[in-house]
């Protein structure tokens, strides 16, 4: 397990064990277990309705689990009300109190904790400074941009020095550029203060960029919990492979831990099946070269900025996505013959 924060000693362990929560016939959480190490930043990733927000809300005390236990720093908080759990939470949007200035919003939690006026003012100033908004302290929510509002919400959540920081899709309502900036800023601040953090998002790039570990959820269960690179390179299930990044499903024949795909023998990841299989290969795990005697025909070529993507159909009728360097993109034209070859990276094979 990787714990990246140098201030991890300030964080506490968080354990969600065998959590169950259902809404009528729908199991939002199906015996979900998730343990966060002190100071760790874990992102929960998954499609809508997979249970990630329910898990976060159960941890916050905003939802009651039907079964299971939740501990924070070794203390069982399952039956404890939200206001006694010592949490900071940033919501998706519109959570600032509109009748209070940025400073008053940040001071609110401190006031709830009985801090005196001067301590509150000093702490609020420090927090607004931390998120780079000292100059906006006297502004109301409607006088700030969406990104600034979320920064204030983050300052407000952190001002009370919570044991756990909960981020419920805090970036999803922002435009792409602000989202990236704030994402990096959240990570910087989290590393600085070392608070154990649970971040819920449906954006895989966000999750992979900031988290120590990413948990991919599906139908109320955790499919895989792993550091971002491992999750990407060694997906445990077909769902994880396809949800995180792009993947090709290529027919192959597997035996003895290897599979033959497009004429190349690939090592298989643990959990792969034998016999007639589909091998999940990333676009960057395949090479494409113009070749009149090749094994595929280019259908389209797209420029994506840092790199390009070539879509080709093999002579066997399979569609393959291949990542190529932007500079090489002009050499691929629709209708052109190419040779597509797996590079040899380990891949997951699932029964066909």
């Amino acid at each position: 397990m990787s714990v990246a924060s140098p201030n991890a000693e300030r964080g506490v362990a968080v354990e969600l064990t065998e959590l169950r929560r259902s809404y009528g016939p729908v199991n939002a959480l199906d015996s979900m277990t998730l343990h966060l190490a002190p100071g760790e930043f874990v992102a929960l990733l998954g499609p809508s309705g997979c249970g990630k927000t329910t898990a976060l809300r159960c941890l916050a005390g905003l939802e009651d689990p039907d079964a299971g236990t939740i501990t924070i720093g070794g203390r069982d908080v399952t039956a404890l009300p939200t206001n006694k759990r010592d949490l900071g939470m940033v919501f998706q949007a519109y959570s600032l109190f509109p009748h209070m200035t940025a400073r008053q919003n940040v001071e609110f939690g401190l006031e709830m904790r009985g801090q005196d006026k001067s301590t509150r003012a000093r702490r609020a100033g420090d927090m607004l400074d931390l998120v780079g908004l000292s100059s906006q302290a006297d502004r109301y929510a409607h006088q700030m941009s969406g990104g600034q509002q979320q920064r204030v919400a983050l300052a407000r959540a952190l001002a009370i020095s919570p044991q756990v920081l909960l981020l419920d899709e805090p970036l999803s309502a922002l435009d792409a550029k602000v989202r990236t900036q704030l994402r990096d800023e959240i990570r910087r601040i989290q590393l600085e203060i070392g608070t154990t953090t649970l971040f819920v998002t449906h954006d895989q790039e966000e999750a992979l960029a900031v988290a120590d570990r990413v948990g991919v959820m599906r139908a109320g269960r955790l499919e895989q919990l792993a550091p971002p690179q491992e999750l990407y390179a060694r997906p445990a299930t077909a769902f994880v492979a396809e949800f995180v990044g792009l993947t090709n499903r290529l027919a192959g024949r597997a035996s003895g831990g290897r599979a033959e795909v497009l004429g190349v023998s690939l090592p298989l990841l643990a959990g792969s099946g034998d016999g007639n299989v589909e091998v999940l290969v990333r676009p960057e795990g395949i090479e494409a070269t113009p070749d009149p005697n090749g094994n595929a025909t280019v259908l389209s070529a797209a420029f994506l900025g840092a790199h390009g993507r070539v879509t080709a159909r093999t002579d066997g009728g399979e569609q393959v996505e291949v990542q190529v360097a932007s500079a090489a993109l002009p050499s691929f034209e629709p209708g052109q013959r190419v040779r597509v070859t797996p590079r040899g990276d380990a891949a997951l094979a699932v029964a066909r």
Partner: protein
Amino acid sequence: MAKSPRSGTRALGGIKPSGALAGVVPFFAYTTVFLLIPTLVVIIAAFVSDGHLTLGNVRALGNAGFLTALKQSIILSALTAIIGAVVGGILAYAVSTARPDGILKRFITSLCGVLAQFGGVALAFAFIASFGAQGMISAWMKKAGVGPSSTLWLYQWDKGVLLVYLYFQIPLMLIVFLPAVEGLRPQWREATETLGGTTWTYWRRVAMPILFPSFVGATLLLFTNAFSAYATAAALVSQAQPLVPLQIAGTFTSETVLGQANVGKAMALAMVVVVAIVMTIYAWLDKRSSKWLVR
């Protein structure tokens, strides 16, 4: 120097002359004919008698009968506004917690839409048929040996009239205030809780201050609604004229005192003044309490 088209547009104070403005012409025409001109007529006529300028009409407002009616009108309007606002406000909150597309919510809001406009003679008659001397409920109560021995209370301004006014004031409050209550975001309550606050903290520090401007605005609307109501009171009260609208009507229809029409207009002017004072207080309160609102 010839003006450019751009500077010509600026001369209109930034308003772009477009077809869209034509849409508000009927509104302005309507308010001019039925609000502005009558108000001007009232103000001018209050200072005119037999074609001469005079302060006599205004001086006539000093008589005890009018002052009592004015006091009673203000008390009745304030009481029905405050009770209506509190009860209607609580009802609006209860309705806001129901399922948005549920039948209960749709039924209550539709019903209140009708009841809020259900004033006048029909409402007065409904109450007389229920609580009057021969009323259905009065008869049941009599049979059961409960309730007051007399039904005269129904025709008194501070009892029956007040109760009947609440019948349209409470639904009106619900309709006017419901959008504000529904504007409370669940995140505000949840943020309060995660920051260590309780339900009471949420109401005291967050929800109530946010709702305050809307609540005061709605209460003012209820006040003016009751202050200007005539038909309901007229249908219930046949003896004396305990309220200003009834007194004004009296100056136009009295068979014993003639030539009082302009005194009636002076009374209407007094009503305008009362509403202006209430509006001024509201504007002051609103300015203090809603600096945070988007303007």
